[in-house]
C-alpha cells in the first residue's frame, strides 16, 4: 500500500444487516482505495456475500452507510450504482441463458451507456459490439461468441460472468468466488487475467481458493461471524495463528 492520501473509492461505516434478530453483518467499516486489490476472506456464514449485496444494493442495510466514488449511495437503486461504475459477479452464475455470449456482453456494455430503449440502429452500436468482442477475447470466450449462454459449460459460464462485470469498464469490480468450481487450469487462467487487470479498476474479491485470493490481493479483510476480525497484507494473514485456527487450517475440510 502506498501512503497516498487518496480518498477511498468505497467506504462503509457501521454497516449492518440483520435477518430477523440474527446479524449477518455487524458494524463493518471498510475503506478501499482506488486501484487497490482487496480480498474479503472468512469462513462460510462470515457475511462476505451479504457485504457484497449491501455494497451493490441488492440488500438494504439495517444500519450504517455505504459511500461509492465519494458519494453516499446507501439508498441508491442497484441499477444506479451500476451506472456509477460498479460491476459485480454472483456466487452462482447469473448469465442471460437465452441469449448468445455476444448478446450477453453487448447488453453488459449497453447497460452503462445511454440508449437502453433505442429501437433504431444507433451510431453507438458498432462501438458497443467492438467492446463486446474485446471482452470476449479477454475472458477467453472469443471462439464461443455465438453460443447460447445457457449451453455453456460451468467454467465457461464463470468466464462469462466475469465478462459481464468487466464489459461496462467499471471503476470498481467485485468478484464473488470467481474460482468456485473451476479446474486447476481454469484457476490459473483466472489468476493470470486478474493480475493483468488494468490498474484503473479497483478489485474486491471474495474467494475460498487461497492460491487465487492471496496471489491477486495486496490487502486482506478477514470477516468472522459478521464482524471484521482483522485486516492486513497477505503474508500477515498467512502468518496469523487466529486465522489459521479459524479458517486456513480448515480449508481442506470443504467449503
Amino acid at each position, binding site marked *: 500500500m502506498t501512503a497516498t492520501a487518496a480518498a477511498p473509492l468505497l467506504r462503509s461505516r457501521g454497516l449492518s444487516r440483520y435477518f430477523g434478530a440474527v446479524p449477518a453483518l455487524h458494524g463493518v467499516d471498510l475503506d478501499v482505495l482506488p486501484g487497490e486489490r482487496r480480498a474479503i476472506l472468512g469462513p462460510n456464514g462470515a457475511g462476505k456475500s451479504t457485504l457484497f449485496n449491501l455494497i451493490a444494493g441488492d440488500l438494504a442495510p439495517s444500519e450504517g452507510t455505504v459511500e461509492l466514488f465519494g458519494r453516499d449511495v446507501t439508498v441508491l437503486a442497484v441499477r444506479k450504482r451500476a451506472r456509477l461504475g460498479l460491476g459485480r459477479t454472483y456466487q452462482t452464475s447469473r448469465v*442471460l441463458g437465452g*441469449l448468445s455470449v455476444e448478446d450477453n456482453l453487448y447488453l453488459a456494455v449497453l447497460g452503462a451507456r445511454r440508449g*437502453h430503449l433505442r429501437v433504431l440502429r444507433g451510431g453507438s452500436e458498432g462501438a458497443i459490439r467492438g467492446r463486446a468482442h474485446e471482452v470476449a477475447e479477454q475472458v477467453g470466450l472469443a471462439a464461443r461468441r*455465438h453460443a447460447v449462454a445457457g449451453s455453456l459449460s460451468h467454467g465457461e459460464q464463470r468466464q462469462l460472468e466475469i465478462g459481464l462485470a468487466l464489459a461496462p469498464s467499471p471503476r470498481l469490480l467485485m468478484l464473488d468466488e470467481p474460482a468456485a468450481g473451476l479446474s486447476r487450469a481454469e484457476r490459473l487462467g483466472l489468476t493470470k487475467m486478474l493480475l493483468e487487470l488494468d490498474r484503473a479498476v479497483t478489485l474486491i474479491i471474495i474467494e475460498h481458493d487461497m492460491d487465487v485470493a492471496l496471489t491477486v490481493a495486496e490487502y486482506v479483510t478477514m470477516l468472522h461471524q459478521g464482524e471484521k476480525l482483522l485486516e492486513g497484507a497477505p503474508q500477515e494473514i498467512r502468518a496469523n495463528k487466529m486465522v489459521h485456527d479459524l479458517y486456513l487450517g480448515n480449508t481442506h475440510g470443504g467449503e
Partner: protein
Amino acid sequence: MKLTAPLRLALAAALVAALALVPAVFTTYFTSAVAVRALVFGLAAVSLTFLAAYGGIVSLAQTGLYGIAGFLMARFIVTNGMDPILAAVLAIAIAVMFGLLFGAIVSGSEGIYLLMITLALGVITYYFFSQSGSFGGHEGINGVSAPGFVGNPVTHPAAIYELLLACSVIAYIGIRLLARTNFGLALQGVRDDPVRMRALGFNVRLHRTLAFAVGALIAALAGVLGTWADTRISPGTIQVSQVIQLMTIAVIGGLYRIEGAWVGALVFTLLDTYTRGITARFETWIGIVLLVILILSPDGLTGLAHRVFTMVAKRGAAAPSPPPCAPAGDAAAALDPEQLGTGSGQRQVAR
C-alpha cells in the same frame, strides 16, 4: 438440408402469397368462418406469445386489451358517427395507454402473482363492459361499420381477410425486428435474469411496462380488426372462457415461438368449426386433441415441428458433428427456438 437466410425468406414470401390466395380458392364460408377467424385469433394470441417469448411475461389481460380497443372503436363509430379509421386509430391509442397502465401495475410481479394480476385485469375489463350502459351492456354494440375499402365483411370476407393477413405479416416482421434492437435484447435479458439486468444498470420495470404496451398495441389491432370482421362486439367476446381460449391457442401453437400463435389459431379454428358437424361432444374432443398435443410437445406444435426438422436435418448431414439447425447469423441466433428452452415450455409457463 440447412435453410439459408435467403431460402427462408423465399419460403416465407411463398407462404404469404399462397395465404393471400385463400379467398380466391376457398368458399366464402371457409374464408369467413375459418380463415378470418384464425387470423383474428392469431393476431390476438401473438400479443400474448410476444410477451411470453421475449419478456417472460404470461399475460391473461390480452383479451381485455382487445376488448378496450374493440368497444371504444364500436362506440366511436356507432354512437359518435366517427370515421371507422379515425375511430380505430383513437381506440388503439387509448388501448395502448391502458397497456402502459396495466404494464406498470404488473411490472413488479413475477410468476403466479403476475398471472393472477393479469387475470384480474382481464376480468375487470369484462365486467366493466358487460355492466356499462354506454357500451350496450350484455348486448354489446351491433352494426359497427368497417372502412369503405373493406366493404361488408360478412357477405364478402375477402377484403377483411387480406387486411388481416397484411397486419399479421407486419406484426410478425415487426416483432422479429424489435427483438434485435437495444430494447428487444434488453427485454430478453430481463426475461432471462432480472437480477443480473439490474446489476448491469437496466430499469427492469420500465422494460416490462413498455413490452406490455407493445403487447397492447398488437391486441388492440386484433380487437379493431376482429370487431370490423364481426360488425359487432359484445362482452361475450372477452369473457373468461375467451381468456382461456386465447391462452390455449397460444400454448398449443407454442408459447416460445411467435409463429406459433397463428399455427395454434388455425388448428383451433379448424377443430372448432368442423368437429361440430361430426359429434355433439365436440368440446370434449377438442379438449382431448389439445391435451394430446401438449403431452407430446410441451412447447406446442411449432416446438414439435422444430424437433422433427432438426432430427431430419441431422440424419441428412454426413459430417461427424452435424451443424446446428439454426443458422449462426445474429438475427437467426437471437430467434433460435433452442434458446427459449425447448422442451421446457410448461416449466417456463409456471415460472
